């Protein structure tokens, strides 16, 4: 074409980004020695390598060292060795290193971007304008956290050696999200990049070499599932941070159960993109482009479910189709490309299979009339309409450029459809009515909600999911929490309960009227479903009374009641505070009764028992006072937006309380849960359950809405397991012997509920109070509200 022909055509022409620097970098390295361990470049112990290729051509880019378990061993040893010095370094020292990394990355920004696009297939515009700048920002932002850590998180210690496993969709950005907070908090790192995309991590390791990162602080080990498993199972690792599929996340949850490792999981999603009739529809269409057609849809938080109000649905879909026709599918390094290839053939096959299946199940799948390049793993942007909620395209994470569309009639239905998923990563709400948007945002079960926007990220704002999208946050203050060791005061190791003894014959005469301790479910005292009772003995073996033997069915009923209770989570914090104060007040009126009961059941002196009651009352007072004070924050990312980090209740929390300090142990756990608006299913101490059953009346007097607290007595091990396996329980806290704790973690994978256990230890109950408990009782939801008129 000559210039005049181009003048008439006015088409776009390829505008390829130069790759010569990247090619020179690739040619100049010995990738068979690309494990970065203890500051040295090493070959894998067995000298194996794997291939990484360019997904737009299928051509080999490099043969990269493939770490085995032996290499992970070496890497963990290096990280362990480096830990004491690095964690003892001053915040300023660590800040300087983080800053140096950020600046060095900035100096090689374009090389990072080109390598990323070569290896992953993402359009150069995205790697250049989004991935790499965000990664750099993450390091520079965290330099400040490193320096202010002592002041902002007084007394907290780093988690230790962290094992980090990252995916292929944002190789460098996910590396930054993992490594920056780890270095800021004084952790040392063993990071495994994804097999499809190891290159930018290698360039990053070179930056570490030059930026003054001490040897062994950052270890980067390329490898596959064997290396991943070795990291997950390594006893020398204190924390695992994983980003990837929910399937693998669950495997990791199970594998680390009982190990005492801290765990954060950032998993899949099926995020709703909700368009109300008063939205700026043209802008919402662009939001979709940034939502589902960003990075070929290979984004965990992709807005893959479009929910559009019926009144504007047809007009909106027409706009979407017109816009899709203008998306350019092409080479990743072409600056005019909107959509590149998927990362690998396996991924392309999977997306095609899901689209075919979705069509078989009744979805109408539309694609613009366009050619795709002949080589490479390209998939056209796809719009699926007529998608029933049961359709596979509405249920499964596709991880490709496929948008499933449904319509809704009103706000309530929009929320219901949005939440009709196992996932809970992100959501997007489009409306010009700020009242509506801010009404809907808190109702969405998602860790991130973007109002009139999508896929906005920043180092200062937490990112992470509800439900099976994982737990933990990355970014912001809330993200740092994941890299600090937990701060609860430990108590003694809990010994396995001894076999129940037969009650000694009671020769004493009692003049009291016989009392039946039932279960407390949904605000009522009810008999256990099985109608069995168990004896409660004093330390001397005397029969103190009997309590109901709760079973799985009673737990089921209690969870239903907890789920149905809307009055408590929707009550104002001030209202919850008053109820908790009232509980304290009413408990205080019965101090002597409870002290006597504790003495009877534990053998504690009256003085000790009374002190326990008084501390329990004080604790209720504390959490009543905190109910309206453990507030969220406002983050200020570098854009014209406010990001509200809201503290929301986790939901239904199962609590398994310890035998030790039967009243204080129980109050110390239920009070923070209730204060934050959770509803609670409590399994009290096995040895002293009468303390809990005595509370029924106190609860009944105190205006606690029915269902906010249910209490099921019975065998701890059995009931804890039922709670762990219950997929409508959002959180589970267990203070019990190590086996029960481990099992609770392992069995929690059904819905990835948030499990916290004492790992077989009790807590130091007199001091077991504070923000750590409130934090555990909340989810942080980041609501982005861009503004401007």
């Amino acid at each position, binding site marked *: 074409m000559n210039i005049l022909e181009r003048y008439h055509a006015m088409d776009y022409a390829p505008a390829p980004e130069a790759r010569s620097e990247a090619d020179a970098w690739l040619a100049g390295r010995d990738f068979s020695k690309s494990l970065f361990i203890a500051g040295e470049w090493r070959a894998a112990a067995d000298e194996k390598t794997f291939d990484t290729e360019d997904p737009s051509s299928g051509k080999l880019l490099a043969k990269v060292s493939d770490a085995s378990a032996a290499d992970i061993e070496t890497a963990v040893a290096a990280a362990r060795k480096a830990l004491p010095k690095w964690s003892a370094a001053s915040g300023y020292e660590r800040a300087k290193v983080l800053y140096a990394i950020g600046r060095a990355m900035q100096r090689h920004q374009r090389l990072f971007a080109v390598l990323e696009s070569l290896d992953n297939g993402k359009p150069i515009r995205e790697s250049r304008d989004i991935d790499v700048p965000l990664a750099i920002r993450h390091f520079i932002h965290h330099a400040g956290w490193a320096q202010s850590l002592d002041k902002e998180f007084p007394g907290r210690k780093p988690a230790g050696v962290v094992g980090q496993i990252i995916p292929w969709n944002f190789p460098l950005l996910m590396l930054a999200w993992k490594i920056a907070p780890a270095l800021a908090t004084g952790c040392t790192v063993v990071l495994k990049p994804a097999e499809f995309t190891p290159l930018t991590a290698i360039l990053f390791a070179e930056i570490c070499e030059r930026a003054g990162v001490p040897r062994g602080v950052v270890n980067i080990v390329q490898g596959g599932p064997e290396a991943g498993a070795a990291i997950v199972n390594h006893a020398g690792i204190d924390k695992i941070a994983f980003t990837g599929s929910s399937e693998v996340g669950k495997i990791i949850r199970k594998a680390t159960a009982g190990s005492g490792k801290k765990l954060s999981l950032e998993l899949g999603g099926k995020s709703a993109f909700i368009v109300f009739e008063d939205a700026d529809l043209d802008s919402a269409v*662009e939001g979709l482009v940034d939502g589902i057609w960003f990075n070929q849809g290979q984004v965990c938080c992709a807005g893959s479910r479009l929910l559009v109000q019926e009144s504007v649905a047809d007009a909106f879909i027409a706009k979407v189709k017109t816009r899709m026709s203008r998306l350019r599918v092409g080479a990743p390094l072409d600056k005019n490309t909107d959509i590149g290839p998927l990362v690998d053939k396996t991924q392309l096959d999977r997306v095609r299979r899901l689209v075919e299946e979705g069509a078989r199940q009744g979805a109408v799948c539309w694609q613009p009339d366009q050619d795709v390049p002949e080589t490479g793993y390209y998939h056209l942007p796809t719009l699926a309409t007529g998608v029933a909620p049961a359709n596979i395209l509405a249920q499964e994470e596709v991880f490709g450029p496929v948008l499933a569309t449904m319509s809704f009639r009103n706000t309530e239905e929009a929320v219901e459809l949005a939440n009709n998923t196992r996932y809970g990563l992100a959501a997007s709400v489009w409306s010009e009515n700020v009242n509506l948007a801010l009404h809907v945002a808190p109702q969405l079960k998602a860790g991130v909600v973007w109002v009139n926007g999508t896929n906005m990220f920043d180092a200062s704002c937490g990112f992470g999911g509800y439900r099976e999208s994982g737990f933990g946050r990355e970014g912001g203050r809330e993200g740092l929490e994941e890299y600090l060791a937990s701060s609860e005061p430990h108590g003694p190791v809990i010994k396995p309960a001894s076999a129940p003894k037969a009650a000694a014959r009671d020769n004493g005469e009692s003049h009291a009227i016989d009392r039946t301790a039932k279960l407390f479910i949904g605000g009522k005292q009810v008999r256990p479903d099985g109608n069995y009772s168990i004896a409660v003995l004093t330390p001397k073996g005397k029969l103190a009374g009997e309590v109901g033997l709760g079973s799985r069915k009673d737990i089921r009923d209690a969870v239903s009641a907890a789920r149905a209770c809307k009055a408590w989570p929707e009550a104002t914090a001030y209202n919850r505070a008053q109820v908790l104060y009232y509980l304290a007040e009413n408990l205080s009126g019965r101090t002597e009764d409870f002290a006597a009961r504790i003495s009877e059941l534990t053998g504690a002196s009256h003085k000790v028992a009374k002190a326990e009651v008084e501390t329990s009352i004080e604790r209720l007072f504390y959490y009543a006072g905190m109910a309206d004070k453990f507030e969220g924050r406002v983050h200020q990312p570098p854009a014209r937006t406010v990001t509200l980090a809201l503290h929301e209740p986790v939901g239904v929390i199962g609590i398994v309380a310890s035998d030790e300090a039967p009243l204080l142990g129980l109050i110390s756990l239920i009070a923070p849960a209730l204060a934050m608006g959770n509803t609670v299913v409590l399994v009290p101490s096995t040895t002293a359950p009468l303390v809990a059953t005595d509370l029924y009346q106190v609860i009944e007097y105190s205006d606690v809405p029915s269902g906010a607290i249910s209490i099921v007595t019975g065998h701890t091990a059995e009931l804890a397991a039922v709670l762990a396996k219950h997929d409508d329980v959002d959180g589970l806290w267990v203070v019990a012997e190590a086996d029960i704790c481990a099992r609770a973690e392992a069995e929690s994978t059904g819905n990835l509920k948030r499990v916290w256990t004492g790992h077989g230890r009790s807590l130091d109950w007199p001091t077991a109070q504070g923000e750590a408990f409130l934090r555990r009782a909340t989810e942080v939801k980041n609501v982005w509200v861009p503004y401007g008129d």
Partner: protein
Amino acid sequence: MSGKLREAEMHPSATVMPLPSRLAANAADTHAIARNPGMALDLGFVESMRSVNRSALERRVGTLTKRRSIKADNQAAWLLRSISLMDLTTLNSNDTDERVRRLCAKAVNPLRRDLVEALGLGETVIRPAAVCVYHPFVATAVEAVRGTGIHVAAVSTAFPHGLAPLATRIAEIEASVADGADEIDVVIPRGLVFGARWQELYDEIKAFRAACGEAHLKVILGTGDLATLRNVTLASMVAMMAGADFIKTSTGKESVNATLPVGLAMVRAIRAYHEQTGYLIGFKPAGGISTAKVSLDWLVLMKEELGRPWLEPELFRFGASSLLTDIERQLEHHISGRYSANHRHAMA
């Protein structure tokens, strides 16, 4: 023309009739698009356009110009396109007939001969679409560009403020048309927008259109004065309903000139009007567009949001005075690989 037919033109794959290559790219008969007859003021339709999210529009234009890259020969071709879409403008208080003649001479011969040859344009003449002047210079301009296919546009209706009596403003249009202007760039009184006095605004513009007769009407909204993108959108809708052939951003005299977010709001209004009525309305950003690079951003905006038909002078113009020289310098660089200087290109 029916709405359906017009929809075909909206489709990105729809081709525009290629212009005969030996003809001036901006030959006199380029007003080939069916003229917008306007429609009754439909306040429901106007109000339905109220949802304009500034942040989202800013993000769109922020990425739009990064999503597309016009390089090498394509860049040269697109810059030539920018020339052909230009209303070469002089709107200064100290303009004189001689100054206007110089401007017209530049419009007639916008590129140095050696550049034309090196670009391989052959006999094809690429010139600005129009010259744009104050009323007193219309006759001079008409004379100076006679036979070239270059239109003469007059700014009118008490430009730049629009605050003269209506009769005066209408008379001004009639005078310019009588002097030979075939395009009239009118300004609206911005206060009507702040007061949501849509009926008055509609009536005034309709009167302007009537006064124009065959001359094409470009309605300048003075977007820099309108404060919000929502106001820009609502005013755009009213102007189109009243019969605007083009809607135009600025006079060049406001403190904020044509910006891409404003442009995006206006082209989306044009799209909505087209979808509803089938008529294609032109768009003219003006003020502050002085570099070749920025002109390409605008072309990308038009192509992405409205499609290929809006890269023809019937539907798109730049109001610009110094843009042409920058384009010449860029074209020289394209040919020679050397950076040029302003003084190597004839001034307007």
